[in-house]
């Protein structure tokens, strides 16, 4: 068990340090989602009342696209100098690597969300009508849902031709229930018309199911030959 945590923390600290020095993933994600926000602002020019109904969808679509940018880079980094091959032959637990990558991506995407949400509020003149604190569990669970599947499918698409395009093709269909939960939950909180409890439970179920499945199958994917 100690080796599990040692590998996990070592990989996570390494990834955070790399990101801190280069800021590759964060900068590209930030600029990308900024572009998406600006394009959305030009495309839709809603009144304050309408924007409460549509902004849940816009926010999460922007974050989903931006997350794909970061997820594509997670494993590509390990391909240089055959790090991943070295990992494959080492006796280190593969789930520790997977969890470290997922937690790393979760941190990066959460930072992006924290930075981008104020922009959405400014551009769309948002005012929350429902219980605003519920947005926090929705955001955390939703981000984890995107990131855990995204990290898994990024490792999967690593073995394919044109892997950059494979990731969204695999990730988006599977993420539809999570995305539905995030969007509907956010809209429910923003408009205050109905309760978001159902969607939080849904996201929690999704997270538990797919985290378990990813942990169960990641070893197979990593060692598939």
């Amino acid at each position, binding site marked *: 068990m100690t080796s599990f945590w040692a590998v996990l923390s070592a990989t996570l600290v390494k990834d955070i340090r790399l990101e801190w020095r280069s800021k590759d993933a964060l900068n590209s994600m930030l600029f990308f989602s900024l572009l998406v926000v600006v394009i959305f602002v030009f495309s839709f020019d809603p009144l304050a009342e309408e924007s409460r109904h549509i902004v849940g969808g816009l926010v999460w679509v922007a974050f989903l696209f931006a997350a794909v940018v970061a997820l594509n880079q997670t494993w590509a980094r390990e391909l240089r100098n055959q790090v991943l091959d070295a990992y494959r032959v080492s006796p280190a637990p593969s789930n520790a690597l997977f969890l470290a990558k997922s937690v790393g991506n979760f941190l990066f995407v959460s930072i992006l969300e924290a930075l981008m949400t104020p922009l959405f509020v400014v551009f769309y003149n948002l005012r929350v009508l429902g219980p605003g604190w519920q947005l926090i569990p929705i955001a955390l669970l939703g981000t984890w849902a995107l990131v855990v599947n995204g990290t898994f499918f990024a490792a999967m698409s690593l073995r394919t031709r044109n892997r950059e395009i494979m990731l969204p093709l695999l990730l988006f*269909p*599977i993420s*539809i229930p999570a995305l539905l939960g995030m969007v509907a939950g956010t809209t429910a909180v923003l408009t205050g018309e109905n309760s978001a409890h159902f969607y939080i439970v849904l996201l929690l*179920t999704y997270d538990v199911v797919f985290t378990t499945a990813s942990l169960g199958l990641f070893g*197979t994917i990593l060692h598939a*030959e």
Partner: protein
Amino acid sequence: MKRLFPILSILTVILLAYALYLALVVAPTDALQGDVYRIIYYHVPSAWTAFLLFFINFVASVRFLARSKPSTERAAKWIAIAIGVIGFIAPFLPPVRKLIPAGMEPSAVATTIVLIPVLYFLVGKWFPGDRLDVLAITSAEVGVVFCTVVLITGPLWARPVWGIWWAPGDIRLTSTLVMWLIYVSYLVLRRFSASAQTQMLAAALAVFGALDVPLVYLSIWFFRTQHPQPVIGGGGSMDPRMLHVLLFSWMAFLLFGFLVCWSRFRLELLKREVEQAHAMESLVGAGAPAQTSLPLSRNTR
């Protein structure tokens, strides 16, 4: 076996033609919808066949993944048995019975669940080794075709009856569409992946897809459904003559689907044999192609 194929093909053509005749002429006209409803004899059998094929794909993928280690294979076997036993008893228990949608018979649910271990063992018995993967790709491909038929005939039917092509947020429509998307992405993965690891990756994706479908169903729980209740084991009250034609039509579709799967299965097996032969040929070297007994030479490709 080879003689069986043409015989079955002729039988399928006759059955499909007779099913068309039954659907268009013999079946009574619906009191509310008129003749438009007759598309049901294509829509519903296609849907059942597609779901059955996706289910076979899931079972084959799970078996393929479980095959990698003896311990997982044993565990998977007992899980399959446990699902069968619990699934057979549970629908009749009062607390679970309340969860079953109104009108659906507990016995229908129990029978469907018992199919899981039965299929699991039959698939493992009939498709040993790499043939499991061939079965998975075959059922996914043919399933996507049938599912496409469902998604095309659905809106064609909905437009005159509901007045809209598509009901966004509808539980059945959305889950069928998402299932179709998942299996298309499965086929894309198989197409774009390098040969050696494709089988494992695809099997893992199939498991993810199968886990996703109930969640899609759950995620749109809150929305009302516009789609009618299922015909078999559901609350639907259907004229017995219509039901007869529907079941006959399904039989024809099943046989047709089986034939397509069979020929696709043989094609895939042949393709793999040829690929192996090519690999052997390049290993042995171009100088000695005559000594290797290859089904095809390299030039014919």
